């Protein structure tokens, strides 16, 4: 095991954790407003495919990222229409959205399989200029990676330090009381879903445009569900989501390390770590969970007569 290999592993963990953190932040916003988005997997796929397609057509990764975010927001609005306006069941609607994403992304991405794109520029982590070239190539990150932690702080600020965030959390706790105090639960939930979808779109953009730099069907490989798990793990808090994403990245890194050092642990079993860890954390909290989850998460707001 060389130092180079260890650095390589850390570098790839940072790459794979970034898209996950953006997605998790998006789902934190959705769920804080009281809506579980189980269709995240589908949202990611549509964002990734449309962003990749636009990047490939226009040659501009920035335009691609923008379209990814927009696509994510729009996909979430479909969910919003079903669960907010039509008052449909959230879990079933989310799963329907997932199937929609499977189909739509396959259609969008059909003619972009194995296409090459110009990706985002990669900038060396400041302070590492002295390292040999072999090493520096591992620490060249794209702007989206540098932006992900500030984004988590921004989401925290948005939720906990602005009037909008206060209203959003109020709706997530009790829509009736929020309505009584003069807020519009429907509008706030639509806004939350759109913003959350844009963040998920950013995660998908990082995955397809900056990291993988290609499009394949089902390329998200369960990231949507991992993000849903990480939201619970981080107790619906954007800053703890950083820890969640770090642990997940560490699990990925650990798995790569073991493989490269020849230890025989099945990658399949290592893949279960994030889920089992979340489960253990949930059990460890026990009854405390009630204090962390938004109280009206998953409930339909029937309107106010």
């Amino acid at each position, binding site marked *: 095991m060389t130092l180079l290999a260890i650095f390589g592993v850390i570098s790839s963990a940072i790459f794979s954790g970034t898209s996950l953190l953006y997605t998790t932040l998006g789902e934190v916003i959705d769920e804080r407003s009281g809506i579980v988005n189980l269709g995240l997997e589908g949202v990611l796929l549509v964002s990734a495919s449309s962003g990749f397609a636009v990047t490939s057509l226009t040659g501009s990764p920035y335009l691609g990222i923008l379209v990814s975010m927009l696509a994510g927001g729009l996909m979430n609005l479909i969910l919003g229409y079903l669960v907010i306006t*039509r008052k*449909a069941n959230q879990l079933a609607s989310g*799963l329907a959205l997932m199937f929609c994403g499977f*189909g739509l992304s396959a*259609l969008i991405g059909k003619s972009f399989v194995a296409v090459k794109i110009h990706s985002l520029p990669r900038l060396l982590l400041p302070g590492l200029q002295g390292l040999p070239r072999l090493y520096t190539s591992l620490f060249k990150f794209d702007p989206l990676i540098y932006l992900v932690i500030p984004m988590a702080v921004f989401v925290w600020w948005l939720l906990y330090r602005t009037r909008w965030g206060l209203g959003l959390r109020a709706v997530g706790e009790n829509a009736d009381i929020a309505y009584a105090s003069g807020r519009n639960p429907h509008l706030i939930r639509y806004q939350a879903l759109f913003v959350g979808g844009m963040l998920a779109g950013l995660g998908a953009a990082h995955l397809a445009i900056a990291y993988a730099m290609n499009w394949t069907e089902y390329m998200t490989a369960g990231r949507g*569900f991992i993000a849903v798990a990480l939201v619970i793990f981080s107790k619906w808090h954007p800053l703890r989501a950083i820890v969640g994403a770090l642990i997940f990245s560490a699990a990925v890194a650990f798995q790569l390390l073991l493989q490269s050092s020849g230890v025989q642990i099945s990658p399949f079993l290592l893949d279960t770590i994030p889920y089992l860890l979340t489960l253990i954390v*949930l059990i460890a909290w026990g*009854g405390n969970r009630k204090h962390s989850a938004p109280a009206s998460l998953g409930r339909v707001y029937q309107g106010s007569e």
Partner: protein
Amino acid sequence: MLKISEALPRFPIIQNKTVFLFIRYLYMILLAFLLFGIILLISGKDPLQSYKDIFTSTLGSAYGFSEVLVAMIPMLITALAVALPARVGLINVGGEGQLYIGAAFASFGALTFSNLPAWLLLPIMIFLGMLGGALWAFIPGYLKAIGLVNETITTLLLNSVAPKIIGFLIFRYWHSALDTVKTPNFVAAARLPTFFGTRIHLGLFIGLILLAIFWLFMKYTRWGLEMRAIGNNAQAARRNGIPLKKYLITVMCMGGAIAGLAGMSQVSGFYGVLLLNFSMSLGFMGFMISWLTGGEPLGIVLMSFVIAVIITGGNLLQLTRGVPYSVINLLLAFTLFVVLARPSFVKGSKS
């Protein structure tokens, strides 16, 4: 919401509730097909020809029809795996994981006892499949019953774990000599019998019989009554002396056992081999079918049939129209969207 008689005063036949519901559903399905048609049109395919393909390939021939019934089997069973726990208010999103573990247990039986005769081996596989699903469902059921963690979250997490365990087992122990993503083919004795020279296997009858038993059980037995009582108001039921914890754990495990049976029926009746990632969201499909139909047995059969037609037809669309197979998921999603968007017409779809 308008009363039916106010909305359609001139058509007395439509005031009949059954006829009205039928027309309503027909309208919804047509709407979904219209939306998908627009998508096809945009992507340069002829929607009318595509629909003709879908229907002639599924309902136009005896073989096509039999394939629809084959596709229906796992949906019937996984939907029941959700509908049963739903009666005591449990939300089992974990059919997908329970199905995988059930399939793994059943495959273990098929590979280990391969020299037993079919009349002995198949019951063993069914038992093992149900045991596997039940064990996997016991975790969320127990955690819920002692008030620790919500079953929605745990079943969802365990869904993602189950297929990875299967992957581990296949890669490490069970893979065939030629292929690392599947086990060797099961021996003939480990296959559920098929009928009429088609791929329809015993799973179809098992599914239909289970749904009938479910209906009778809920309607005519004391347990059914007590389960409905728990579903209506768990705390009131507990104060009336119904053993709540016992019911929650048992019913969750029964749901898991049924999902496990669906897994067994897929590997034994359909594939004849345990494959990596073979389910492709069957468990989630069952969840939606159950939720959209309010868990009513007849509704489950009808909804499964509609979805089976769409999915089976999609297979052909890929061959004849050059549409990627997963695009058929869009038609499926549109159908689900329109049904979801009309909650007042579908019992139980409100949360």
